[in-house]
């Protein structure tokens, strides 16, 4: 038992995690492409035309997955940040740092695709409605987290300050999710929910789920790549980093 536990904790050190992440990245890229091709095929060629929105509804296949990911990545980021704060584990804080830009990108794409969907259907790119505004706040929370960490010189202090910001911001995630039921908004209700059957055709649902899986795999691949860069930047003073095959300099004879 204790041996297994120590084995597991071994991966919590940047030194063991760096090569492991390098091996995992291609796997997630392959999965992302497979799910993406399947999802796009379902979304454009299998899912039928919508009765009221025509072909315009197909924006759903990127809008809903990016919105889900923007919220989900935030929760994962806050979780890693909390772990970094409570266990003082630097790899956890690096993971939080690596997720933030991808989360911000997802939030931005959610707002962007939402605007491109709102214009033809509601007649406006933007309204200050509960769902849209809370998603915009999520985008700013990501930017705030990145900016705060960048502004503090000492990385360990930056981790702590960022973690507190990330944890306070968690309260915004349920607000986004339930905004469509709590307030009277222009935005439609949840397309998929746990307690009732989905209000859409099965093929549309599958297209959406496949695209969500694609973005999930993409996010993991990208976050792992970024955390490897962060490890090199932050551990540059250590001996193991200098001994890596890619950073080693051959001594000229």
């Amino acid at each position, binding site marked *: 038992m204790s041996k297994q536990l120590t084995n597991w904790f071994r991966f919590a050190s940047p030194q063991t995690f760096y090569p492991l992440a390098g091996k995992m990245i291609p796997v997630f890229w392959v999965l992302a492409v497979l799910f993406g091709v399947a999802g796009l095929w379902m979304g*454009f*060629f299998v*899912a*039928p*035309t919508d009765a009221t929105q*025509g*072909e*315009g509804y*197909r*924006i759903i296949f*990127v*809008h809903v997955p*990016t919105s889900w990911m923007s919220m989900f990545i935030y929760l994962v980021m806050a979780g890693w940040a909390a772990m970094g704060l409570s266990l003082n584990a630097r790899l956890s804080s690096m993971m939080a740092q690596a997720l933030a*830009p*991808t989360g911000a*990108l997802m939030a*931005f*794409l959610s707002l*962007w*695709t939402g605007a*491109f*969907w709102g*214009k*033809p259907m509601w007649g406006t790119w933007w309204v200050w409605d509960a769902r849209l505004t809370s998603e915009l706040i999520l985008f700013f929370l990501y930017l705030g987290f990145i900016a705060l960490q960048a502004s503090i010189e000492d990385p360990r202090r930056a981790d702590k300050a960022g973690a507190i910001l990330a944890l306070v911001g968690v309260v915004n995630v349920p607000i986004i999710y339930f905004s469509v039921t709590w307030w009277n908004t222009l935005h439609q209700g949840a397309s998929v929910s746990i307690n009732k059957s989905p209000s859409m055709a099965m093929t549309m649902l599958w297209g959406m789920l496949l695209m969500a899986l694609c973005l999930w795999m*993409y996010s993991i*691949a*990208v976050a792992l*790549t*970024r955390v*490897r*860069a962060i490890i*090199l*930047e932050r551990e*540059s003073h250590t001996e193991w*980093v*200098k001994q890596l095959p*890619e*950073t*080693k*300099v051959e*001594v000229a004879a």
Partner: protein
Amino acid sequence: MNWNSAAEFFAMGGYALYVWGSFGACLLAFVVEPLLIRQRHSQAVRTLRRQTAAEQLEMENP
């Protein structure tokens, strides 16, 4: 199959700007982000190599 021709597919029932504006932005983002990260990683590797080389030089010619 929803489409009778490629032109019909690209027209998206009159919603071409909105559908392709959304998918295009996502595609662009998911191509650019990995490229930027790759650049960041190789930048970190270059900095490290320079550092090590400088240290070695210092050791050889104190």
